[in-house]
């Protein structure tokens, strides 16, 4: 296996991933990698298999073929929460916040992989439990300031407007302080201002925390602006991979988007 060992600067690499549900092929023999510290965009028309791609990356789906290397080691058959613990956080296409909880609690839950006080300490709310709670609260408060959501700290997220929920969800993912951050259409359904805010947040996250980011986005403009490299999927196949301007001039991609009939 060590032959295919990816170079050190690669954070995640996917080799010949194929995934299918029953007969339906969702992904066919896809390979690409994500370098440490880059912003990697995954684009493609609807139903191209972008979300399936993310689900493979954070282990919610298990591909029938292919292997996943993360942080220099090949991934065995792990459960999603174990992969989260390895340092992959994500947001979801249609918001998956914990509606019953406050913004604060949602963010704190984002840090759950980093908290370890056992049940007895928590029961009496002393020692390790309290200490841990406070220091993590501190970190979360930074993110709250960073995302400018102080005002809704104690509000149940169910009551928040859509844009805000998107932001809180980003916050929850940031709270995990992961090595790799997956964003599934972070700007879907947003108006221009909201999109600009979101872009700013993503870039700031990238600069400030140096987080590696993989994002799915439909808005070409946005993608071309913020992404370092772009991979293009269509019908579960990879039809393009490279720097934004390469992609811009890639014939397959143009066809795919303009919808030229597939021979």
């Amino acid at each position, binding site marked *: 296996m060590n032959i295919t060992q990816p170079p050190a600067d690669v954070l995640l690499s996917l080799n010949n991933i194929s995934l299918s549900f029953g007969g339906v092929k969702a992904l066919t023999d896809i390979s690409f990698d994500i370098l440490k510290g880059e912003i990697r965009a995954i684009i493609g028309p609807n139903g191209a298999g972008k979300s399936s791609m993310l689900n493979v990356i954070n282990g919610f789906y298990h591909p029938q073929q292919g292997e996943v290397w993360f942080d220099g080691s090949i991934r065995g058959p792990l459960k999603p929460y174990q992969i989260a613990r390895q340092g992959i956080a994500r947001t979801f296409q249609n918001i998956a916040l914990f509606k019953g909880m406050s913004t604060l609690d949602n963010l704190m839950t984002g840090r*759950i992989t980093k908290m370890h006080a056992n049940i007895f300490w928590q029961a009496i709310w002393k020692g390790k439990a309290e200490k841990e709670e406070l220091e993590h609260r501190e970190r979360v408060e930074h993110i709250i300031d960073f995302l400018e959501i102080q005002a809704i700290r104690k509000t149940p997220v169910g009551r928040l407007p859509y844009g805000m929920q998107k932001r809180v969800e980003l916050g929850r993912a940031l709270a995990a302080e992961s090595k790799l951050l997956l964003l599934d259409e972070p700007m879907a359904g947003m108006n221009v201002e909201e999109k600009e805010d979101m872009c700013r947040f993503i870039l700031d996250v990238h600069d400030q925390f140096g987080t590696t980011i993989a994002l799915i986005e439909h808005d070409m403009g946005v993608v071309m602006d913020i992404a370092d490299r772009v991979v293009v999927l269509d019908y579960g196949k990879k039809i393009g991979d490279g720097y934004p301007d390469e992609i811009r001039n890639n014939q397959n991609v143009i066809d795919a988007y303009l919808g030229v009939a597939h021979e």
Partner: protein
Amino acid sequence: MFYRESGDFKSTYSADQQTFPIKFDRIAVGVILAFAFVVVPFLINDYWEKSILLPFLVWGMAALGLNILTGYCGQVSLGTGGFMAVGAYASYKITTSFPELNMFLVILLSGGVTAFVGILFGLPSLRIKGFYLAVATLAAQFFLVWLFNKVPWFYNYSASGMITVPERTVFGIAITGSNSPPWATYLFCLTFLVVFAFIARNLTRGRIGRSWMAIRDMDIAAEIIGVPPLQAKLSAFAVSSFYIGISGALFFSVYLGAAEPTEAFGIDKSFLVLFMIIIGGLGSIFGSFVGAAFMVLLPVLFKNIMVGGFGWPTDMVQHFIFMLVGGLIMFFLIVEPHGLAQLWRVTKEKLRLWPFPH
């Protein structure tokens, strides 16, 4: 009254995270607790002990337990009666086999045993969800009751299968049996309830509580951001069963003193506790108590008014009580679907703004 949080600022996170952020609440709760621990023991008599306070405390405990599982972790359970039976029979077996054992320990151990059984019957929850999960817990309900009724070892081979608690003392004061003074049994149960209410509060505001609520609100997302579902669900089952086991043990050994599974721990008990937490408020500790009060004390209150007060025929009063309780349940749901606790919360909001609503 002036119910304000203005000028009640938090300078530290720990201050912000405390159980009762508002000063007024802290004082109120302090007063109530002081009253409960210091004053009530001097006023209490047999009637108040056996008909009002012990039932409330015991059922409050059970409701608290179920609320952890159903209200916080979102796992519907109809096995409460069965788990209470486990607690009761555990306490009976333990205290009859080790007569010297301190009653506090006996009760706690019974809780432990129940927690174990709870985990066992919680396992299907990993595969079965929502209403369907109820079947697993119902299986527990009926099977456990059947078991305790069938296997003579559980009731020490007594002729009829009734279990009767022998007299046990704590610090030389009888806690169980007929010679136990009302204040003693009351304080015994009250201590358990208060201590475990605070433990519940601590658990639910920390990591474990969050993982429960995450599973409740969106289990898939929870797993993807790193909440292990197995751990979360089973821990909820364990803690919840622990509470319910304790309430069962208290129900049998302190409150009733004698019990048989079929009648004392039937399915109707499981429903009763479920009603309590829904009417009181899912995912609210305070709600558990309000719900218990509603389902247990209200009928007694009505009965005392209508029979004791107006001297109406007892059976007719019983029918009226059923209709009244039913009517009230529907009424409150229409006024505030999320339970009495929520109703209380909303009232508080209003009070804060009073007299300037805008």
